[in-house]
């Protein structure tokens, strides 16, 4: 076997014992790596019903088959655990150098359990694992921590994944940062913090061999050249911030906590403005020929010196969604989140929820610790982010995420707590994107655009985005399965338009790298398998159909103005689409997975855990 090492490192931080698990090529081929492998490791190593912030939760890392090779955008890693934000599967992805170093240290994955008696940095030096005292780094920001650890070890080749104050203080949407790229969203930083791990440092000295070096070099060189063409133009030039004006133009740019969908200062916070006025450099993750990370720097004014690699999602969340109409302000806010180790998307939607509570008198200035948290008040937002990361005063409430915070505050504040399954919503207002609405509702990770990917169906005009209709269930399933294949390989989604025939090309290159035969059909099957695996994890944690739902605002508050004026979703529409989706998936009307389906997906052991019988009526209907 090439590329893969066939070895998973298990670390128990309570006892500081480690062990090596050998995995077979057949096993690796079923999950590939990344999100698929990490999720399988969580499923196998986390007891049902465990406390996500307790010692039993397994925090799992996995790289992909292409880590550290010339396969473009293949050097990413997946991280998964039971999410402290959603109580369900929390699977994340990140680019950068960590994935390569994990492989060069000899590992396909890590499983970390337990809870250290004192704060530690785990230093994985090939097959030696050391536990370093983390006291000097406590309270420090993510980037400062990484540099300080590299300096202490005395080798700039060491790669570090670190949490910030937010992770230390168990903010439920804390992230893990590596070289300025983030393992974001579902609170894996809090899981790491709950184990009292400030950082993972890793150094590898092994080379990565591939089965067919000449074939792989030729095929990957071709892809690198294609990746400079039209398929990646958007990402290379303006990056994802180009979405601001596009979403604004079609009236789906969430503004002031999703109260509006068109932002009056959209031009000022657009990708175009970032590019013209603030752009300093385009950066790439390891092995990436695209370089989508558009760095902006503030050169004058009160935020002079602030700088960040800007992406659309934190931009929308902390910008228009919080009523911020100035690019320097948003650069400062995103940089602050990254440094504190807060997920910028969730932090933005939490802030905007608190701002709307303040606007409506649900939370008073006193209840907000005297902070005048109006939409557009940048200084108030910065104070509040710091309070959240340190769970100081009202920050302790906001650190819980909008689902829990609104349940505690009450007074109807759940009406505009914009989340699904507890995960705060991304930057596309679903009232004007009805296929995507269902995609977010059924998504196992909560409201995640990256896992659902079905906004493409609406935005590219494949359907009428203001109505529902037959066939959307299958379309949403297909985008979800495709996203999942990329997340397992791992390949960044931004390369997705660069293949002649994705399944054929990638299966071929996978075999060149690993020496493991993989047919295009087998590659396709991984997407469906891992989507079902994630769903199975959620079912084991007590998921019911009621969890696949959206906040009241999308049903009860029609879009007030702009191109989407009047648009809203009805419960009947969403139920119709969810039924359609479950049918396409071959699930029961209640959204459970039939035993036979799991066996077909080569998940027979999981069928024992959560499989159900398909009701007779549905079997007949399916066959008809």
């Amino acid at each position: 076997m090439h590329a893969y090492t066939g070895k998973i490192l298990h670390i128990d931080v309570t006892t500081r014992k480690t062990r090596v698990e050998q995995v077979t090529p057949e096993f690796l081929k079923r999950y590939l790596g990344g999100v698929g492998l990490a999720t399988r490791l969580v499923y196998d190593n986390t007891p049902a019903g465990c406390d996500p912030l307790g010692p039993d939760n397994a925090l799992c890392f996995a790289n992909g088959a292409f880590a550290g090779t010339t396969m473009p955008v293949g050097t990413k890693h997946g991280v998964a655990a039971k999410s402290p934000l959603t109580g369900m599967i929390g699977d994340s992805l990140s680019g950068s150098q960590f994935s390569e170093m994990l492989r060069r240290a000899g590992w396909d994955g890590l499983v970390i359990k337990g809870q250290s008696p004192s704060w530690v940095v785990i230093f994985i030096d090939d097959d030696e694992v050391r536990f370093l005292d983390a006291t000097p780094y406590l309270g420090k920001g993510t980037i400062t921590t990484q540099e300080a650890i590299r300096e202490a070890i005395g080798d700039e080749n060491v790669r570090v994944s670190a949490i910030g104050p937010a992770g230390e203080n168990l903010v439920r949407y804390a992230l893990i940062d590596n070289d300025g790229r983030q393992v974001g969203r579902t609170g894996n930083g809090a899981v790491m913090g709950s184990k009292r791990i400030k950082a993972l440092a890793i150094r590898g000295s092994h080379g990565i061999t591939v089965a067919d070096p000449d074939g792989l070099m030729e095929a990957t060189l071709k892809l690198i050249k294609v990746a400079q063409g039209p398929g990646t133009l958007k990402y290379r030039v303006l990056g994802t911030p180009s979405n601001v004006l596009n979403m604004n133009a079609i009236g789906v740019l969430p503004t002031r906590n999703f109260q509006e969908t068109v932002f009056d200062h959209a031009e000022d916070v657009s990708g175009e403005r970032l590019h013209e006025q603030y752009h300093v450099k385009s950066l790439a993750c390891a092995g990436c020929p695209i370089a989508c990370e558009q760095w902006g720097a503030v050169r004058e004014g009160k935020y002079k010196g602030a700088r960040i690699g800007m992406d659309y999602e934190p931009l929308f969340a902390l910008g228009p969604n919080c009523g911020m109409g100035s690019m320097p302000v948003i650069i400062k806010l995103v940089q602050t989140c990254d440094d504190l180790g807060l997920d910028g998307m969730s932090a933005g939607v939490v802030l905007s929820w608190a701002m709307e509570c303040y606007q409506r008198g649900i939370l008073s200035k006193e209840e907000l610790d005297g902070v005048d948290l109006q939409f557009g008040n940048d200084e108030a937002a910065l104070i509040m982010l710091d309070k959240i990361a340190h769970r100081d005063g009202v920050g302790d409430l906001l650190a819980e995420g909008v689902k829990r915070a609104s349940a505690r505050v009450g007074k109807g504040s759940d009406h505009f707590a914009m989340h699904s399954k507890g995960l705060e919503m991304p930057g596309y207002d679903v009232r004007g994107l009805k296929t995507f609405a269902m995609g977010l509702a059924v998504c196992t990770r909560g409201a995640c655009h990256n896992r659902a990917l079905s906004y493409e169906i609406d935005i590219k005009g494949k359907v009428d985005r203001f109505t529902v209709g037959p066939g959307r269930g299958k379309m949403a399933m297909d985008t979800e399965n495709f996203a999942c294949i990329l997340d397992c390989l791992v390949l960044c989604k931004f390369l997705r338009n660069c293949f002649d025939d994705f399944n054929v090309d990638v299966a071929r290159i996978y075999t060149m790298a690993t020496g493991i035969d993989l047919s295009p059909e087998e590659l396709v099957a991984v997407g469906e398998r891992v989507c079902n695996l994630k769903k199975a994890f959620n079912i084991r944690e007590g998921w019911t159909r009621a969890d696949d739902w959206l906040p009241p605002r999308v049903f009860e508050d029609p879009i007030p103005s702009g191109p989407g004026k009047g648009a809203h979703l009805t419960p009947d529409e969403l139920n119709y689409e969810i039924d359609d989706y479950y049918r396409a998936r071959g699930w029961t009307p209640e959204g459970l997975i039939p035993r036979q389906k799991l066996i077909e997906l080569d998940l027979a052991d999981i069928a024992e855990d959560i499989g159900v019988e398909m009701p007779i009526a549905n079997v007949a209907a399916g066959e008809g």
Partner: protein
Amino acid sequence: MGEIGYKHIVCDPTLCTGCRLCEYACSMVKTRSFDPNYSRIRVVRIEPYAMMAIACRLCEDAPCILACPRDALTRSEVNGTMLVNTDKCDGCGWCVEACDFGAIILSPESKHAEICDLCPDVQDGPPCVSFCPKEALSLATPEVLRQQVRRDVVARLMEELK
């Protein structure tokens, strides 16, 4: 011989994105595995966005050759690169210290000095250059670089006159 000086690998730091595909490609050609510890070109990144790739610059009066106590380093008459006589080299590392650019590695395996040789055996030229997605890497002589700098400065002056 029309050109003045030897060509070497040049990196334009404004174009370099820090992707390190050059390291991956170099190490594959030299070791048949992806192992940046053996790459003769290395990307240096000073957080967050100052970065460039560095390989041997084929210095005219090369300090590495002068520094070697065993006369293991000589210059190729074919392409000007530094040749390492592995029978003489004992891995003392004086050349590594002498190099102003950190462009020499000591092979973790053989312990010998290894220096960019511009891949004379590779048909399409050095793979670091062909794999560089942003064309930040190129092969140039000092004279060509001088010409480029002169063109840039004149273009800038003309821009200011507009």
